[in-house]
C-alpha cells in the first residue's frame, strides 16, 4: 500500500457541486480532497446546457435557495481565473396557446410575490425582444434575472481555484467503501487507496445512491436522461435563454403545462434553447428514465428538432453538428438533498439537484462549507433534508 492519504474533508464527486464545495471550504482554510471516479465534469455538469433559469424553480424554498445562489455568482466569477462565460441575459418562456399563457400569468403573480421579477409579454412586446419567434406563440413570461453560463468552465474554474488554495483532486478514483466506526466516518476506501477523513461530502450526483449504500442509507437519487442537440456556430442569433411553457410543465410536473402529445409526454419533451459564447445553439431537451444509459436516440433527436422549430422556425436552417445526453441526479420532488445523515456523523449530502445543479452550486458549496466547519448553516436547509421523504 502507498502512503496512507488523509484529508480534513473528502468530497466525493468532481462535478459542479463538488467543485463549489471545495471552493468554499478552501476559502475557509479547510484541507480538502476531491475524489472523482472519472474526470472533472464527467457527469451531469459536463452534459447539460448553461441555463441559469430562475423562473422555472418551485415557488418556496427552492426559489429562495436559487436567489441566494444567484446573488453569490458575481463574486465567485470575479474570483475565478477561467472565464465561465456568464451572461446575465434574461430568459423568455414561451406559450404556444392561450391556456398556457393564462397559466404563466397566474404563476407570474406568485413568483413576483416570492421576490422574483417577472413580466408577461404579449405578442407585440415579445416580437420586440425575440423578432424571429413563431407566429403561433401567444406570449411569454420574461424573467430579467435569468442568465446563462458555461457549466464546464464554471466547474473547472472553481476546481482550479480550490486547487490553488491547496485542494487535492484525485481523478479516476472510485470510492469502494466508507468505513464508519462508533457512528462516525473514519475512512474512505478508494481505488487509489484509503483516505483517512472524519468528514465526507457526498456530491456524487447520479452515483449518490451507490455511495449511500456504503453507509446503509437510501439516498433516493436516480438518473434522469436529458438529450441535447448542438448546432453549428453562428453569429449572435439568440440574445436570451428561451424555453417553452411545456418545459416547465415536464420539469415541475405541472399538469396544466404538460405537452398534449403522448410521445412528447413519454419523452418528457420540453423546449429550451441558448446560444453559447462560441456561437453554437444548444437545443433541449428530454426527461427520460433509462437507467445509466447515456445514448442519444434518433427518436428524441427528431422530436427535439421538430419541437424547436415550432417555437423558432429559423432553427430549421441550422446544421446540427452534435448531440449528447446527460444524466440529471433526479430526486423524487425535484429539490436537492442536503444536510447530515442520522447516525453517521461526518457524512454530509449535497446531491439530487435534479438539473438545477449549475444554478444551485454556489449556495450549495457555501452551505456545505458552513455545515462541515461550523455545524450550522446561515439559512435553514431543513426543506432539503433527506428525511422529508419518509
Amino acid at each position, binding site marked *: 500500500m502507498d502512503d496512507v492519504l488523509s484529508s480534513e474533508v473528502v468530497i466525493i464527486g468532481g462535478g459542479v457541486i463538488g467543485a463549489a464545495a471545495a471552493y468554499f471550504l478552501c476559502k475557509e482554510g479547510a484541507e480538502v480532497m476531491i475524489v472523482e471516479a472519472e474526470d472533472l465534469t464527467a457527469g451531469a455538469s459536463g452534459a447539460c446546457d448553461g441555463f441559469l433559469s430562475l423562473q422555472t424553480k418551485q415557488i418556496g424554498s427552492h426559489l429562495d435557495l436559487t436567489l441566494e445562489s444567484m446573488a453569490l455568482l458575481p463574486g465567485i466569477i470575479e474570483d475565478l481565473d477561467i472565464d465561465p462565460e456568464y451572461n446575465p441575459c434574461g430568459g423568455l418562456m414561451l406559450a404556444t396557446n392561450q391556456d398556457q399563457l393564462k397559466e404563466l400569468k397566474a404563476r407570474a403573480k406568485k413568483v413576483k410575490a416570492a421576490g422574483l421579477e417577472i413580466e408577461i409579454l404579449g405578442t407585440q412586446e415579445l416580437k420586440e425582444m425575440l423578432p424571429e419567434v413563431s407566429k403561433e406563440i401567444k406570449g411569454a413570461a420574461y424573467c430579467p434575472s435569468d442568465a446563462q453560463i458555461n457549466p464546464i468552465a464554471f466547474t473547472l474554474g472553481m476546481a482550479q481555484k480550490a486547487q490553488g488554495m491547496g485542494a487535492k483532486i484525485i481523478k479516476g478514483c472510485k470510492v469502494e467503501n466508507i468505513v464508519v466506526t462508533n457512528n462516525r466516518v473514519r475512512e474512505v476506501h478508494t481505488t487509489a487507496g484509503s483516505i483517512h477523513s472524519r468528514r465526507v461530502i457526498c456530491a456524487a450526483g447520479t452515483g449518490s445512491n451507490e455511495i449511500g449504500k456504503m453507509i446503509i442509507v437510501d439516498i433516493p437519487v436516480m438518473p434522469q436522461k436529458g438529450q441535447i442537440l448542438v448546432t*453549428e*456556430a*453562428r*453569429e*449572435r442569433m439568440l440574445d436570451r435563454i428561451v424555453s417553452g411553457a411545456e418545459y416547465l410543465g415536464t420539469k415541475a410536473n405541472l399538469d396544466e403545462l404538460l405537452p398534449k402529445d403522448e410521445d412528447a409526454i413519454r419523452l418528457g419533451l420540453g423546449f429550451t434553447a441558448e446560444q453559447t*459564447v*462560441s*456561437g453554437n445553439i444548444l437545443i433541449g431537451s428530454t426527461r427520460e428514465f433509462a437507467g445509466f444509459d447515456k445514448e442519444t436516440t434518433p427518436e428524441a433527436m427528431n422530436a427535439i428538432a421538430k419541437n424547436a422549430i415550432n417555437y423558432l422556425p429559423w432553427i430549421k436552417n441550422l*446544421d446540427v453538428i452534435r448531440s449528447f445526453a446527460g444524466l440529471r441526479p433526479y430526486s423524487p420532488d425535484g429539490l436537492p438533498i442536503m444536510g447530515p445523515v442520522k447516525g453517521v456523523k461526518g457524512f454530509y449530502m449535497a446531491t439530487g439537484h435534479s438539473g438545477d445543479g449549475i444554478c444551485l452550486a454556489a449556495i450549495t458549496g457555501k452551505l456545505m462549507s458552513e455545515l462541515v466547519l461550523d455545524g450550522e448553516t446561515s439559512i435553514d436547509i431543513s426543506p432539503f433534508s433527506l428525511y422529508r421523504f419518509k
Partner: protein
Amino acid sequence: MAFNNFRILQHPVLGEKKNGKEVRIFLDGLPIHAVEGEPIAAALYAAGVRITRLSPHKKEPRGAFCMIGRCTECCMIVDGEPNVRTCRTMVRDGMRVETPRGWME
C-alpha cells in the same frame, strides 16, 4: 490573379492535366477561375488564396488544414450559407464565396 499560378499542368507520374470545364466563382465579390469537379478550397489555393476565414474571437487568419472535411478550418460562407466546408464542396459556376470575418464582439 493568374489562373495557372499554382496549377500543376505537367506531372512526371500523372502526366498532363486534362482540361476540365472552366467555371467562375466569386470570392468576396472578386472573380476567380476554377475548374469543374474541384472543391472550393482547392480553387482558392490555385488562385493563391490561403485565408479561408478569420477566427470568431481574435479574428486571426485561418486556412485549410486537413482537406478531408475533419478540421473545419476551411469553413466559409457559400451562396449565403455559413459554415460550409470548402474542401468538400465542389465549385459551381457563379458561386459566391465569402470569407467569414469573425463575429464575436
